[in-house]
């Protein structure tokens, strides 16, 4: 095999403008012939997961090249979600944990050489806590770096022991302002703050993610409030990633037949995105 790496384009070190996710579960055997009751039992035990998709990504969901697993089911209804087909747990594919672990094992070498690992994302990873915990325990026992990508809304439901198996938390702070948070996600902000406080107390590594959505989350005041919150966690936060909103998820909203209120919203300009990054930088944070 020869590989020809082409790297066109100017280098502005901006974070990836868009990413493909929701690519399906190819390569994972599905459990399709289970009775509903035994399915539920296996899910409660954390042996069966409702999985949207998996992907091997680089420099996107944590350090190095990572296997990101997108879980189905989310308590939030973010208006800008680019994976609305993960809202419902029932829309995922039933995958046994051993199937997933076979893949994780196969990629150990990839993780080792790139300084990567696994990232459990969603949906909301903590909706399927038992499954996530089993996956994290197994990954740690294989010496693999682990990461969860969460809104923190269900943070209070996980034990400190669960967090022992997590090396890095990607914590999405979707808004700093209570009302805006509610408007954007349909839920309250406080659980996220509480979870962050707890991660800070535990001294966990945290990368903050903030999606800049024009007209929703991008105002100067709102960003200042997010920065205020992030500054509560000096023991935890290692970097802040400002992700410009994009329209990659539009087709999914349409095919699901859900009203997509952001269909006319344009991605923020480079200058706007930089302005927001600068607000975080002004607090002495490492920002991308």
């Amino acid at each position, binding site marked *: *095999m*020869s*590989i*020809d*790496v*082409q*790297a*066109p*384009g100017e*280098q*502005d*070190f*901006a*974070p*990836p*403008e868009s990413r*493909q996710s929701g*690519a*399906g579960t*190819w*390569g994972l055997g599905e459990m399709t012939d289970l009775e509903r009751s035994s399915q539920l039992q296996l899910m409660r035990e954390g042996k069966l997961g409702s999985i949207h998709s*998996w*992907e*091997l*990504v*680089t*420099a*996107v969901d944590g350090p*190095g*090249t990572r296997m990101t697993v997108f879980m189905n089911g989310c308590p939030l209804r973010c208006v800008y979600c680019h994976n609305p087909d993960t809202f419902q747990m029932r829309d995922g594919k039933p995958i046994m944990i051993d199937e997933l672990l076979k*893949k994780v*094992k*196969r*990629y*150990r*070498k*990839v993780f080792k*050489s*790139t*300084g*990567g690992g696994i990232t459990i994302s969603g949906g909301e990873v903590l909706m399927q806590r038992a499954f996530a915990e089993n996956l994290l325990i197994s990954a740690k026992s294989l010496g693999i770096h682990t990461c969860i990508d969460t809104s923190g809304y269900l943070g209070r439901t996980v034990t400190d022991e669960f967090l022992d198996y997590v090396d890095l938390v990607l914590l999405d702070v979707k808004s700093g302002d209570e009302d805006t948070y509610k408007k954007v996600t349909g839920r309250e902000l406080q659980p996220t703050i509480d979870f962050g406080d707890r991660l800070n107390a535990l001294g966990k590594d945290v990368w903050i993610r903030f999606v800049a959505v024009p007209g929703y989350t991008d105002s100067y005041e709102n960003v200042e409030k997010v920065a205020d919150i992030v500054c509560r966690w000096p023991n935890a936060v290692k970097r802040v990633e400002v992700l410009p909103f994009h329209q990659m998820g539009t087709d999914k909203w349409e095919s699901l037949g859900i009203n997509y209120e952001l269909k006319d919203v344009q991605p923020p300009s480079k200058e706007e995105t930089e302005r927001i990054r600068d607000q975080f930088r002004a607090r002495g944070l490492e920002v*991308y």
Partner: protein
Amino acid sequence: MTAQAHIDEDLLIRPEFADAWRNFADGEWKRGVEVRDFILKNYTPFEGDASFLAGPTEKTLRVWDTLEKKFLSVERKQRVYDVDTETPAEIDAFGAGYISEDDDVIVGLQTDVPLKRAMMPYGGWRMVETAIREAGKEPNENVKKIFTEYRKTHNEAVFDIYTPRIRAARSSHIITGLPDAYGRGRIIGDYRRVALYGVDALIADKERAKDSVADKGFSEHWARYREEHSEQIKALKRLKNMASKYGFDISGPAKNAQEAVQWTYFGYLASVKSQDGAAMSIGRLSGFLDAYFERDLAEGTITESDAQEMIDALVIKLRITRFLRTIDYDQIFSGDPYWATWSDGGFSDDGRTLVTKTSFRLLQTLRNLGPAPEPNITIFWDENLPDGYKEFCSAISIETSSIQYESDPQIRQHWGDDAAIACCVSPMKVGKQMQFFGARVNAAKALLYAMNGGRDEMSGKQVVEGYEPITGDGPLDFDEVWNKYEHMLDWVIGTYVEALNIIHYSHDKYAYESIEMALHDSDIIRAMGCGIAGLSIVADSLSAIKYAKVTPIRDETGLIVDYKTEGDFPAYGNDDDRADDIAATIVHTVMSKIKAIPLYRDAIPTQSVLTITSNVVYGKATGNFPSGHRAGTPFSPGANPENGKDTHGMVASMLSVGKLDYDDALDGISLTNTITPTALGRTKDEQVKNLVGILDAGFVPEED
């Protein structure tokens, strides 16, 4: 018929040899033509980083600037800068030519003016005439008369022999782009021999080899051996004559680094003056030249800046190689490539890295002169390469997108530690092995032929007789389609390899690469480099038939012209064994069919999965597929997954490609990835580190 290469004793006692080889460690290389042995005894592995490198000299910048302003910018506007219509090309046909007065570091042009293209009519006159007219000039009537009335060409010979089925396959485009009207290329002369031994020693060696069989009595094989040796000796004499026009006497060995680079380049120059092969690769020079640089640096006769200037000058020359080609040819090959591939990196069999300071100097040319596709720099990657080198490769990749990577363990295991790539992926032992270039057969179209019983899905014509089409309008059955495909491949591969045998028989006879072969051992390995196009389309289509429901759609004559595919199916390139195993089975099946056919000159059958060059042309000539691939659209290149179907990330696609068995594709497998730097990380350091990690991961089999 064996003839062990050796150096005559009386040459060795000549004082110029003692001087040229001063301070070099002794070895077998002094008693026979063994460049590899010389390198291993004399090179210095380098484990450091790029901080020692020098930028471009003023002279380098001036030469490059003149080239750009006076020549390259003009060529870009008019496609061809100029053509010489009077002088059929030959090693010493042209007088000396220079880019400018500053062009005195490493000299030599193909003709008398930079970028001016020469006629090379031995492959075929028609191609030459078309190319001359397309360049806006008129052919010389006398030259035309010679090559149409008096002198038979390769192209004419091929068509004298071609069978009806080959003609049918060519006109329906199931086989196209064959080297039956142009130079085959993919032969790497060991140009280092010119520098290490000088031409007289090489001539003496060939004379001796030729006469070592003088008393064996006539056979056709024997006569060809002797005649080819005579051609090689004549070519070596012309090489000396050509160098003398530039004021150099290269009868003896090079005495310092400047001469070593110059002599080596003269060897390559002689090749590209006399042959316009599809790929004219330069081989593996860094370790060899580095021995000379290290000696001169130790003797205090050159500085690092001088060394870099020489490599920059050589690379400038490799960037302005030009061949007279037609617009059609440019379409098949997507541009005007000549694949001056320079292989580097890797390890020696004794466990030392072959990375030297000159490996860094070669990469540095991309900074000093800016990015360029030629020479096609190909790094033999191993996760144990020195960190400084890995990081430099990665950084230069990110800055210039001009580096290609191969797995060093894979190549070394099969072809040894002095192998180099010809063209894009074809490995060979330098000076000990050559390839009969086989272009590629349209393996995707063959699937449509299988289902239509040999009728062409585009024209409706019955191209192949004696095959039953799929009947009925129900969903396709995987086993039935696979059986028909295997059966149809017998015809397709049989026709294809028959054409290749004819082509190489004729090429040896009428367009023999005498200077390139003069820089090979007398007894060499020959490989027949067959190839396939459209792998991902066949794999995905068979996967669709197996895992989804595929119903044929017919036109009024019953010809299947499209497919209705319902349901999900795994696509090749996502590290899903269901689809990847189908792809590996296709490659294996094709290989076993090639192996069953006797090959010209007892060549070793090999296969490549490489379509960087003809994916657009093949796509145009091919219909709709069960996978959803649409008629007339380009194939994805090489072993790449179908465009847009590799949805699980680049590393997953690398792992899928890695499942193709290298033993089934010893001529190489290519995967082209386009990565934007920002997709590799947030900072340059992160990008460099992540690319190193991806290359390490992609080239190493997973743990169980």
